[in-house]
């Protein structure tokens, strides 16, 4: 049992760089939480009523979870991916029905003073399920049926999370596009998806006509890119526009102007898309069908943006988005938090004000300074040197995860590692982006750094599963070489 002697050791094959990066980031996070919540006037600095003392406990608990994750057999994750996913969905629905509302999001379970957000664990379950589904031998991302399956797998929890009013966390699941791309999703489908998201944001700024025309052009453009048939599609486009103009001219007079160019174009393009859809279905042009699907879906989606905007988003979220888009500008309102965050970071300068010396943090000018805005503490107290260090550490961790994914022999491990990388990347982009005013404010934590047990434990498990999968590959290969 040489394999046992060498391979059964708990840390054998564990990627030491990843663990080191993890430990450094957690340590930096704890220091920042200390700075953000330190109270000179408190009776005892070691009291467990302080955030930084509580976080010590959470770090300990997270490590126990990490050990547990490393102890389990790789096959366990493979086997339990779907049950975990189902459990995750059940938990999300349960939270939606029976959960407790915090900051407008009905996304929490409460056990005494301890609160858990099931969405954190749903992310892990979804990542496992995606890895499981996509690693199936028969799975092909170019096939429409499989694409729909993977789309549903992502969209079901996403929908529930959005219903919980936790839009930020929901959008995190959208980051799996990153994984889909790596696994062969046609890039001409990635681009229209991104463009449609951009259009959704732009719909507040653009007129319906401009929106419609750009939508037609985006979808036709991506379809041309997939099929490579330029001439026929341009003829198709020209026909659509001509038909719209003719229709307007014909109907404008008898209907006393009720039919204008916009409505004519809308009608013609829907009809044309439906016809093209039937044509594509008959000729098994699955990717063309997706382009048409995106077009029709967006047509349903875009007119409802106003409705979505008014009903799905919370007033503060609406304000934040509008303020981010520059539609309203109110320094003391929605902009206030971001402004204060920027002031805290900006005032740090090159070397920062030093540990526990940040006035903006200490005197409470930055909201949520120990949770979502923890990066401000880094920026103010450790300056540019500190922010760069954190960003470099996070960047290295994500690149390391991608590298770990690439060296997996099983697609399951690779896909899972990419899932982790994409979740982390999205969290970092949105969290740090919002503190520096690049991204609208969405309440999602900075991985491993923000205060909170549920988030720290979930991210640790998420990461250590990837480490565990990677370790088994390496163990296996070590053992292979040894024999």
């Amino acid at each position: 049992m040489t394999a046992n002697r060498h391979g059964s050791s708990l840390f054998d094959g564990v990627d030491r760089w990843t663990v080191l990066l993890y430990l450094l980031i957690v340590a930096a996070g704890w220091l920042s939480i200390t700075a953000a919540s330190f109270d000179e006037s408190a009776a005892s600095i070691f009291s467990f009523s302080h955030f930084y003392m509580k976080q010590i406990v959470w770090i300990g608990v997270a490590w126990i979870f990490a050990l547990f994750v490393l102890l389990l057999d790789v096959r366990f994750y493979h086997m339990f991916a779907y049950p975990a996913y189902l459990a995750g969905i059940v938990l999300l629905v349960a939270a939606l029905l029976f959960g407790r509302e915090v900051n407008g999001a009905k996304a929490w379970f409460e056990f005494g003073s301890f609160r858990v957000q099931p969405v954190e664990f749903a992310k892990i379950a979804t990542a496992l399920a995606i890895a499981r589904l996509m690693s199936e031998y028969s799975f092909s991302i170019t096939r429409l049926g499989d694409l729909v399956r993977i789309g549903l797998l992502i969209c079901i929890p996403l929908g529930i999370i959005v219903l919980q009013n936790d839009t930020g966390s929901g959008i995190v699941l959208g980051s799996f596009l990153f994984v889909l791309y790596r696994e062969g999703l046609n890039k001409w489908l990635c681009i229209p998806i991104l463009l449609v998201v951009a259009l959704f944001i732009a719909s507040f700024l653009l007129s319906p006509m401009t929106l419609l025309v750009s939508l037609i052009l985006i979808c036709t453009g991506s379809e041309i890119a997939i099929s490579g048939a330029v001439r026929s599609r341009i003829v198709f486009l020209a026909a659509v526009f001509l038909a719209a103009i003719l229709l307007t001219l014909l109907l404008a007079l008898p209907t006393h102007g009720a039919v204008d160019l916009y409505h004519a174009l809308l009608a013609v393009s829907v009809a044309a898309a439906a016809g093209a859809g039937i044509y594509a279905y008959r000729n098994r042009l699955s990717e063309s069908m997706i382009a048409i699907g995106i077009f029709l879906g967006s047509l349903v989606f875009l007119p409802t943006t106003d409705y979505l905007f008014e009903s799905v988003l919370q007033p503060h979220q609406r304000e934040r988005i509008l303020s981010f888009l520059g539609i309203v500008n109110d320094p003391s309102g929605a902009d206030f938090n971001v402004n204060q965050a920027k002031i805290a970071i900006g005032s740090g300068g090159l070397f920062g004000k030093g540990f526990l010396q940040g006035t903006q943090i200490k005197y409470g000018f930055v909201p949520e300074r120990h949770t979502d805005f923890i990066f401000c503490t880094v920026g103010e107290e450790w300056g540019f040197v500190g922010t760069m260090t954190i960003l470099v550490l996070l960047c290295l961790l994500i690149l390391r995860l991608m590298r770990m994914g690439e060296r997996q022999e099983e697609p399951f491990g690779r896909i899972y590692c990419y899932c982790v990388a994409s979740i982390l990347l999205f969290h970092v982009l949105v969290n740090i982006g919002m503190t520096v005013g690049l991204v609208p404010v969405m309440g999602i934590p900075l991985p491993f750094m923000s205060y909170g047990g549920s988030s720290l434990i979930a991210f640790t498990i998420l990461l250590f599963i990837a480490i565990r999968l990677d370790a088994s590959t390496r163990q296996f290969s070590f053992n292979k070489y040894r024999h």
Partner: protein
Amino acid sequence: MIDREEGYRRMKTLQIVVFVIFGLLMGRVAYIQLIDTRYKELARSNVMRREVQYPPRGEVFDRRGAYLAQSRECYDLMVVYREMDKRGFDTARLCNITGITPRRLRQKLADARVSPRAPVLVANYIPKEDKLRFDAGGFRGFYAVYRTVRHYPLSVGGNLLGYVGEVSASYLKNNPAYRAGDYVGVGGVESAYEPLLRGRKGVKILERDTHGAIKGSYMDGLYDTLPEPGRHLVSTIDARLQLLGEELMRGKVGAAVAIEPATGEILMMVSSPTYDPDDLVGRERGNNYMKLLHNKRNPMFNRAVKGKYPPGSTFKLVQGLIGLQEGVLRTTDLHPCHEGYSVGRLHVGCHSHPSPLDLSYAISTSCNAYFCYVFRDILENSKYGGVKNGYDVWRDYVLSFGFGRRLGSDFLDEGSGYVPDRELYDKRYRGSWNSLTVLSLSIGQGELGCTPLQMANLAAIIANRGYYYIPHIVKQIEGCDSLDARFYEKHYTKVDPKHFEPIVEGMWRGVHVDGTSRAARLDGYDVCGKTGTAQNPRGRDHSTFLSFAPKDHPRIAISVYVENGGFGASAALPIASLLEELYLTDTIRRPELVERIRNMQIYYPAYDR
């Protein structure tokens, strides 16, 4: 499934995506932290509250140490809107304590709302007792700032001392060192010595948290500065003299100035009507100011340094001195006077007195004809080749006595008076004029305009027999060894000191022997004086009196000018005499005269229309 190669390429693309995202974040962070310096400033303004520490204003004493201007502790009530209690507070109580109306409070809070972080003045001049009650009230967002308010305990010297008020917008524009709400001296001593009296503001930098609660001093007070109190001044004014002067001048329009000849120190300066400087300080300032502004006698006009009066007969002293210096007049020269001076149709009248008469009697009895001769002799002096050249020479003499120009006293708004120049007559008479045309100048009439300060200075010049020190109002400045150098310089006139004695003799004779000034006699003192009765287009003659005493080693030179007071001897002389009596003997032995003058009311049709 995609092949390995495609997978590798896609991995590279995704790496680029990761690098782009981190590059964006790093670039943005670098911009915020290293390039955009705005945020440091904003962070400071978030945390720091600068509290200006106002210094107490320097106090002003009279030459004997009595308070002329005092600084009293008072407070300004400020509010920072953002830091106010959002749940509201007891407005009625605050109004009650600070003595402002609820309407004004509402208005101030509306103002404060416009700039919610800036401290806004709610009420000023809050006395110490009220401030203590306010402190006990615990009104969040409100705080009291130490200031000093001026108090003038003797209520004298309205135009002399000036007053202290809030800086005006136009003043702020020209003086960047001041901030809105600062106090500044206006007029008189307060404005002349403003930089010294003001002191220097200090600043206390405090740290506050997001709720506005003060957390302590910034950097342990490293950048705090202490206010530097204003310097105290000892003024040259004799408060008793000033008090009596103002009392005697009450009900009359005019000015009285007394100077110590040996130093040029102004002992008293009354501009009448005057006002109580306390009226222009504090909350009632606005109303009182408007009242003074609408007073037709114009109490805020400092007649003592800005008024322009014909000197009348007192100017004969200058005429005589110039004649002596020019050699066209000898003390023994006799000129006839037959109730005046007549050339052709021109007639300058005079009262009846013995004729012919010599210089000293001409001065003592104030003969008009005599000085017509003297003036014409000066102008028609053949060595200058023409009246116009002679006039230039005469004018230079007059200017050397301090007329027609600013003396350079420490009053910033000192007037220059007026001595017409040759060009004026050339223009008016198209070049053809002679000594007869300007003959009225010989007896201090015509275009001549003198400030009461210049007339008092003339008295000092004669008392000193030929020189003067620039009259000044400040004797000593705390922390300074000396005053401005210009106040220590002897200014000689163009007339040799030896020529002064006969003039002094004439002035002495006018008081003690047979002149117009006999009522100015003081037992035990050799008083010298010269009356003046100036014709003017605004009604009765102006009454003026110019005097110094004692004759040898004079201690006080004085000029009193009472508009429409009639003969020099009827209004101006008794006032000057009483002032001399008080200054020289420290007592008043003629209370009935004080009573008479005090009750003397003069009718001013020109003002009171």
